[in-house]
């Protein structure tokens, strides 16, 4: 049996990789990918905790499945937006979109 902390450390690492990617990547698709990484790190946490707290029931796993489905639809939406941005601007470089400038 792998101790809980291993899962948590792995999840934290994955989360940090995702965070780093989301903050520094300039390609919008890669930013979306990084967001997914972060999300999956959280899901991993959920499963690890569930397995640790209630090993017999599989609530955490089922819950994670729901999260994954939501994440899939969310990434679909995100990609659609990226596609649309690409059609409008012919670029998906994050730095090219500065309309929010105050």
């Amino acid at each position, binding site marked *: 049996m792998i101790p809980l902390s291993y899962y948590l450390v792995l999840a934290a690492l994955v989360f940090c990789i995702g*965070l780093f990617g*989301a*903050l*520094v990547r300039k390609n919008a698709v890669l*930013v979306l990918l990084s967001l997914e990484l972060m999300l999956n790190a959280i899901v991993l946490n959920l499963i690890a905790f569930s397995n640790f707290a209630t090993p*017999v*029931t*599989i609530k955490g*796993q089922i819950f994670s499945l729901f999260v994954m489905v939501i994440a899939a639809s969310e990434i679909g939406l995100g990609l659609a937006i990226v596609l649309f941005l690409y059609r409008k601007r012919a670029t998906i470089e*994050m*730095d090219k*979109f*500065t*309309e*929010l*400038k*105050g």
Partner: protein
Amino acid sequence: MFELTLIMLALPLSAFVVLLLGGKIIPPKKSPFVAITAMAISTVLAWALLIAVILGKEFERHFTWFDVGGQIVHLGVILDPLAAGMLLVVTMVALLVQIYSLGYMHGEKRMNWYYAALSLFTFAMLGVVVSSSLIQLLVFWELVGLCSYFLIGFWYEREDASRAAKKAFLTTRTGDVGFLVGAILFFTVLGTFHIPTLYERAASINPNLLAVMVLLLFAGAVGKSAQLPLHVWLPDAMAGPTPVSALIHAATMVAAGVYLVARTYPLFEMAPVALEVVAYVGAFTAFFAATIALVQVDIKKILAYSTVSQLGYMMVGLGVGSLATGMFHLTTHAAFKALLFLTAGSVIHSLHTQDIREMGRLYPKMKVTAITTIIGGLALAGVPPFAGFWSKDEILLEAAHNHFTLIYYLALITAGLTAFYIFRLIFLTFFGDEEVEAHESPPVMTVPLIVLAVVSIFIGFLNSPFLNNAFGHFLGEKEALKPDLSIMATSVFVAFAGIFVAYRSYYFQPGKKSRLNSLLSKRILAEKYWINQAYLRTFGFVADFLRHVAYNKYFVDEFYQLVIVRPVHYFADLLYLFDLKVIDGLVNSIGWATLSVAYSVGGFDVAVIDRAIDHFGKGALGVSKIMGGFDVEIDKISVSMGRGAVGVSKVMGGADSKADKATEGLGWTNLRLGWLARGFDLGVVDGAVNGVSLLIAGIGKRLRRIQSGYLQDYPLIMFLTVLTLIIVVIFLGKK
């Protein structure tokens, strides 16, 4: 044994990892050798494993992958004769193709990626072969599909390549849905994914249900092995590099579907209806694809349709015959079709065209390629003693023996068509009339050709009566059918007939006009056979029509375009309009509503409230005027009163002047206090208010700078805030 199998699997995977991670460190010239070394060791191990299995050391080992609420999902490794044989086919072809690619892909950028993807593919394919759990098999199966996608789209700058990659992925995925549903059904009904356990338990369920379940698995095989009606992706997949076509789209991946049926063959045997479906799908695919291959002009397209056709043959072998029949044809086909693709690659490498009309007299310039192609062609055509003869003959034999008359004749006609189209290709490419610039390929390409050619000559004997049907016995076949000389003679006759027609139509002899594509042309028929002109006109029209239809692949792609792709597009457009008009409309109208409410409130303000205030002001003015008049009267009274008072005051004057001074002093004091209060008000109270607003304005100005407009700064700020909060909580929480 178990460890050896795992090592054999791990080697290509580690080559993939090394090439992927070391992509920038390993110079592109060295990267192929990483992959080839790993592959060579794997191949040696595959030989060792095969020998071990021949010595009777087969094994199956499985363990729990995960346990969900008491439902155990297994992972497992199986090494039985079927797997061991297939392992050798995969590793051998993969090794030869990787060596060949050294020459073919010479000077290509992204060499690292090419070899990485090839290694990953080999790993996935080996994984499919040794899986003993349906779900694990499915995972590797999808990985195989993914690698196929990568490699078809290897030249992704080209529009057709990236389109073909997508098409291949989506089409095979259509079948994979069936596979997934089938696997899940097996798990729900029989409670396990473990294939050997499935064999045991399947006997207890309704054969009709079992037939549905295995046919769902077969749907996956139809997608992967390019059977009707999901064959459309394979010809397009030829947009990938030719060695990839040889490895993936001829010898191994497309055979994965056949292998899946073979792996679950006991289940199919329990549902004979399903086996019949397999046989008929295979037979129609074989015939249909062969007719398309007759008229294509792209050398790789011809071979692609040939592959589809031969895969159909394998399915027929499984459907009408036995496991060994289908697998035997798979094995021989892997050898000679890989050979044919690699020779085609050699020609393409030299000429930079794939159109056989632009090729010509290549034979004198490319002797090795030409001779190996002819060997491959003879093997494909089923001329004894080459490989294809034995395996094809066995399929025909089984079909005849088990009274599948329609399938037998379809297969027989297909054999003739096969011989025709492959020799049409050979004659046009190597014995045409045009002199073209060409050169023989480097040894690194020709040596794999020679190896495969030798294999193509001899591998057929494995399951021939001369070696006592060793292959069949190895796969557990009890008794092979006795060879039927009449069927053998028929199939050989049909093969030679096909070759002869191709020879008469396409072999160029000096002094004769080129008769390119003229088999069915009216002129030739009229000149040669004196057929009645009117009759001929009809016949010629029909022939032209048939050729047109076959050349356009029976318009299957167009049909799918019409029936599936367009409706989906229309539906998407409809949804887009719905989004634009209804959802966006709703949001926009809420905006408009808010705006118009604001306007009307503004109007109300101007019209009603302001006017009311106005009126109020005017009223107040009137009142004050009246009051003013009243005041004047009072003034008059007070003036007269004042005059009276003056008299009095003069009297009082003396006493008063002292009091006056006191009052004056009081007044001055009052005035000073007033000044003071004003100063306080201006300086302190107003100052405070102004100071606060200045402060806010200043903060605002500075905060504005944070709003850089760069999207990623916002999450960064969020992240820093959360981080600060966490740090604060941690440090304050310590107490």
